[in-house]
């Protein structure tokens, strides 16, 4: 029970702010006489899909010799097809606007079907080496199929998967856990990340401007900014000689992001810009003291942090968040 809300409902009913029917329903919920388990159902579905795909992956790994490649590939394809057929039967007609899910399982069956498809494609590629030395291109196929699935069935989750899979195809890992852009030549990775990031941000802008799945904007923009700003920060912190150029690029890009996000009322984009600028400027503060042990750069970093705090407070006061 939420006693504060319960007592407020009684007062609001007495003062005729709430009608009887409204107050009765709200009171039931506030007193926990009516409780939603929708979140729990979603969590179970998510865990189920996670376990199922892990089980299939393990089956393929341990028994590919016993079962045979055709049986494995055919079995997974059949399961994926079953999911996708169910999707097609249940899905609402396509629209460029936001389409609500027909039921709570829809998103998860879509996820399961596409993950099984991706697994099957990866297995076929590993087993039959269709693409040969260009095997990473199967990630491009998977990414494009995810993208199509996201648009067809209006899923921001699948769109997120599509964008990270396309980044993986270019060798870029959007992983906050590993803290790096991926394995391989840092320069190439940064270039790929900058290009992909700019493309995603452009896609976000076009989604809104053309009113084509405008609600995908946040997914495109967040993935794009994460890639773009991470690449620039990585250039500032990881380069030995031309870090100044990277810093200048970072300041320009992040400044632009902050200015635009301020105008658009997008706090998350603004936050990404602020954090990127702060981390990038730390190199500028610490670089002159690289070979001296002194507290001065820390002091300057603290002062910079105070400046950023003032900026955050001012931006929050003036930004009209959407």
């Amino acid at each position, binding site marked *: 029970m939420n006693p504060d809300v319960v007592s407020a409902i009684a007062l609001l009913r007495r003062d005729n702010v*709430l009608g009887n029917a409204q107050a009765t*329903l709200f009171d039931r919920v506030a007193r926990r006489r*009516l409780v939603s388990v929708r979140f729990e159902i979603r969590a179970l579905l998510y865990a189920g899909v996670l376990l199922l795909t892990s089980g299939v992956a*393990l089956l*393929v790994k341990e028994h590919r010799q016993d079962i045979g490649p055709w049986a494995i590939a055919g079995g997974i394809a059949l399961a994926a097809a079953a999911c996708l057929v169910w999707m097609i039967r249940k899905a609402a007609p396509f629209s460029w606007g936001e389409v609500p899910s027909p039921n709570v399982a829809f998103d998860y069956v879509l*996820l399961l079907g596409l993950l*099984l498809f991706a697994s099957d494609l990866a297995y076929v590629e590993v087993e039959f080496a269709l693409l040969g030395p260009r095997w990473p291109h199967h990630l491009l196929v998977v990414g494009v199929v995810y993208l199509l699935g996201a648009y067809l069935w209006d899923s921001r989750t699948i769109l997120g998967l599509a964008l990270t899979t396309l980044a993986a195809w270019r060798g870029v890992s959007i992983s906050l856990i590993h803290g790096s852009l991926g394995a391989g030549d840092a320069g190439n990775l940064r270039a790929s990340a900058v290009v992909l990031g700019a493309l995603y941000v452009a896609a976000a802008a076009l989604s809104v401007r053309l009113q084509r799945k405008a609600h995908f904007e946040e997914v495109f923009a967040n993935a794009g900014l994460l890639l773009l700003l991470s690449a620039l920060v990585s250039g500032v912190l990881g380069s030995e000689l031309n870090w100044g150029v990277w810093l200048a690029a970072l300041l320009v890009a992040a400044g632009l992001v902050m200015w635009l996000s301020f105008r658009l009322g997008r706090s998350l984009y603004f936050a990404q810009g602020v954090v990127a600028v702060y981390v990038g400027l730390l190199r500028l503060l610490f670089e002159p003291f690289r070979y001296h042990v002194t507290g001065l750069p820390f002091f300057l970093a603290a002062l910079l942090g105070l400046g950023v705090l003032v900026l955050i407070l001012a931006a929050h006061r003036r930004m009209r968040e959407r």
Partner: protein
Amino acid sequence: MRPESVTWERAAEVREAAQGWRRVEAIDAPTEQAIREAYPDPCITPSAVWRVLTAGMVTAVFLCTFGALLLAFRTDQLGLQVLMLLFAGASLVATEVLEVSPQSARRGAAGATAFWGILFLLVGFSLFLLDTVRVRYDDAIDAVLIASLLAWAVGSWRWGSPLFAALSAISFFLFLGRFPYGRVLWGLIGAVLAGLAARWLDEASWAPSHRRGAAILVVAGILAAYAVVNTYSFDARVLEDLGRSAAARVAPSPSLFVFAALATAVVPLVVLMWGVRSRRTFVLDTGVVLLALSLVTLRHYVHLAPLWVILTLSGAALVVLALAVERALRRAPGGEIAGITADPLFADERQQRALQIVPVVAAFTAPAAAPEEKGFAGGGGRFGGGGAEEKF
């Protein structure tokens, strides 16, 4: 908590509820406005993004200032302790100042200063015990755990932070684990704590954040009691390892293992039943997590089938269970059974679904293609994109 802060919190609860009612159009805009006027909340409450950003920058300022002073004065051990305690004091004073003003109380800065203040206090105290007073290591751990229990508990009570309540509970149980019969104490006190805290969950005289703290204590008590009876915890002597290094270890009898095996199966079911009967979703969620842990424990000791069979079947079972529950609830009269419904009610489902993008993408994205693997020659690729990163 200060009386003004409690009043602001209560008003914020009502306004948040009204926001939910408005979201599903159960009330119109003028009604929501009338409620907001009836329950004024002078506090500025930024969104989570602003709060996290502010807390992060306050942390950066705090740690950089500490680092600057540490290097500037090049202090010895005593100086380090004094500096830490000074910083702790300054942070706690800053928290009080920030909490007084409705302009700054909920911006995230007060939470950050309180957290670092208490942490520095505890680290400074630990260094004082070990380096200055030179007490024995085991005694120092005991003293620091008691200090931690008290400091986080006082912090939670004063500033209403559920995180501090959790840290206090963790310190408490770690301290209990230091005793020779730590396992017994964990079980007894865990059960008592869960029972006592549950009585305060709906207490009108408590501030909303204190009630949330009570919910944290209920979960902590349940988890502690479960940790006592879990078979793996018995077998691996997890709790006994928390004890003092000189403590004698007594091997548990076989009959206790049988009891533990039974309890591992029964406790999650009891918690689930409690969750369903009380219609408290956080208890229900705790029961689900415990049930999953019990199944993992079962699999650890009894190999019913190969792992892939277990994973696939349990995954399929979860999906079927979720769909069956959802269908049963949806088809029930009024869309509810015993006061439980699958409708989102007044929750912000759009936001919940947006938040789900991050774990899904983190779990299921294929690993990045490494350029040096271009020379693929069959059998060197990766099976990914399905939540797996198995190498062939």
